[in-house]
């Protein structure tokens, strides 16, 4: 087995707002191998972006890491200074954001913005940086790179801009690329192209990817592992097949149940997940999903369920699985 590139253990992170402490992450743990692609799935506010940003030290004010450890590429991230973070960002770990329309600076040319990152992390000369920028644009499938380098972001389409963002992110060949809903703001046909590009680049460059999305379709096609997040917890973690064919947490089941399928028969309806996400200012004592869960039991409301290991790579936090395990144990 290859060495772990990223290892997060029991991460707690809160936003200290005037209204009170918003507990955004409540004990998140997972790890990532080199070259692995992990999908983090969850609804808005479930903590998926916050987790990813904390790896890069980009937690927005007034958020603060209050517990747990993050190991990335030999760094103890939770103890790093802003200066150390700066050396790491864009170099060892990079990120692409959701909205390519606003993620590029409107008053600088594409070339200027790519070269800036290259020159920041390497000691390449201006000319070398330009050559590298051109190479990168070709890599991400932009034709006429010489012309594009001189253009401003507003002169490019959304898909093109996202390609440029990817070029910037990959400029220094990072070991980990975080993609924060990279396709959400794009047209469906462009989405497919961008995903294809990312897969191709991953094969060429061999970096790990953390793919943050609320779209199960995106993770299915790209990821090897999937972490399902809900209210600042990873409620289920497993390989893509395990998550899709043997979902174990009721929330995951709900998510999968709400994907339309071509084979859906008329009598089968899409099943929405009813109710509202929990208020993270006052998280409930029990399982955060309990109030919306169809199979909620009394214990679910009072206590956080323990981890149930379903296979070497698959685990979930659900009292139903505990109950089954206990019953299975009794029978055995």
């Amino acid at each position, binding site marked *: 087995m290859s060495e772990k590139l990223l290892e997060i253990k029991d991460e707690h992170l809160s936003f200290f707002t005037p209204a009170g402490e918003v507990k955004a992450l409540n004990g998140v743990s997972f790890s990532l191998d080199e070259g692995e692609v992990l999908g983090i799935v969850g609804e808005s506010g479930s903590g998926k972006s916050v987790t990813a940003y904390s790896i890069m030290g980009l937690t927005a004010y007034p958020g603060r890491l209050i517990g747990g450890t993050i190991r990335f590429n030999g760094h103890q991230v939770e103890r790093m200074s802003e200066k150390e973070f700066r050396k790491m960002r864009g170099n060892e770990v990079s990120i692409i954001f959701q909205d390519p329309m606003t993620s590029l600076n409107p008053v600088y040319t594409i070339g200027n913005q790519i070269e800036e990152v290259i020159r920041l992390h390497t000691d390449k000369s201006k000319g070398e940086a330009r050559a590298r920028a051109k190479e990168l644009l070709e890599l991400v499938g932009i034709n006429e790179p010489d012309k594009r380098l001189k253009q401003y972001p507003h002169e490019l389409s959304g898909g093109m801009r996202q390609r440029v963002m990817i070029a910037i992110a990959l400029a220094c060949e990072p070991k980990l690329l975080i993609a924060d809903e990279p396709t959400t703001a794009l047209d469906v046909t462009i989405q497919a192209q961008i995903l294809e590009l990312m897969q191709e680049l991953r094969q060429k460059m061999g970096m790990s990817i953390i793919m943050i999305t609320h779209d199960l379709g995106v993770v299915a096609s790209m990821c090897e592992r999937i972490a399902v997040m809900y209210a600042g917890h990873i409620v289920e973690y497993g390989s893509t097949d395990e998550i899709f064919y043997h979902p174990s947490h009721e929330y995951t089941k709900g998510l999968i149940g709400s994907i339309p399928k071509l084979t859906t028969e008329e009598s089968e309806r899409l099943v929405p997940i009813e109710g509202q996400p929990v208020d993270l200012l006052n998280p409930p004592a029990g399982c955060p999903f309990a109030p919306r869960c169809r199979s*909620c*039991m009394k*214990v679910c409301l009072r206590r956080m369920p323990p981890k149930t290991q379903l296979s070497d790579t698959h685990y979930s936090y659900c009292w139903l699985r505990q109950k089954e395990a206990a019953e299975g144990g009794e029978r055995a």
Partner: protein
Amino acid sequence: MEHTQNTPELEKLPLGPDDFSPATASEKESLVIMRESVNFWADGLRRLRKNKIAMVSLFFILLIVIFAYILPSFWPYTYDQQIKYSENLSAFEYGKTELQRIEAGESVFPHICGTDKLGRDFAVRLMMATRVSLTVGIICSICVLVIGATYGAVAGFTGGLVDDIMMRFTDILYTIPDILLIILLSITLKPRIISLAETPGFEWMQKVGANLIAMFIVFALLYWVGMARITRSQVLVLKESEYVTAARALGAGSGRIIRKHLLTNCIGTLIVTTTLQIPAAIFTESYLSFLGLGVSAPMPSLGSLATDAVKGMNTYPHLLLLPAILISVTILVFNLFGDGLRDAFDPKLKN
């Protein structure tokens, strides 16, 4: 187990079969703490009340209003009453005749802020001046609101060529430095209106003060442009919004849509803009007074009081400092309160 608290001791307790029975809907509900949904006004007021600076400003505004509109009625002197032998007194000083009256056993109300060169009690003049300045500020802002909001709403709502022409007109007015036109208008309109007030049928104008009316007209003629632009852009945004389309689809007429949907939605912006217009008008009035074009004697405004005091500022600095401070404080607290209102009711108006 009746406890709902999750204590560490409880955590260690073994679980019974009862724990794995399905939870009832009410049990589920008791856990979902829904935040109270609040309406726009209640939410805005709550935010306003939390804003310390805005609340302190409001307190000062109330003080100033009492000072300007209520206190003069209880004051033993009037603003144009000239007391002989009491000229140029400093604070708490008495004139010759007043001292005689005091010796005769009469009680004489002190001149808290002294008197001016004509022997007028300066405190009451300050109050009246504040009243004039505030009135100019408030009425001008209301005129601006009425004209600007109507113009902007009509332009935005009609759209097309009418909108184009109307907005081109405001564009041109906008580029012209307003102070020049204001100065011109006050030179030319004021004598007209004052002579108009003397003709029969218009005597009511004298009661209000012809030169105050001139001031209102001058301000109203120019300052509505900004308000019209803001209203129009609001109307345009709202016009495109789904609920207005929905109202239209349900057969609501234009009048009803303007009243019910557009105005209720712009009202926050309008209130904020109007509030911020008050200090601007006070500012300009005091400026015009300084140039000798503002409210004219014997009626004082804060600007004219300060102007009158400039010549003698080396001997009687308090005559200058008091109105100067009062103008600045008034403008300041109105600005701060307006900012507070904006943050509370219309955060998107920032910048």
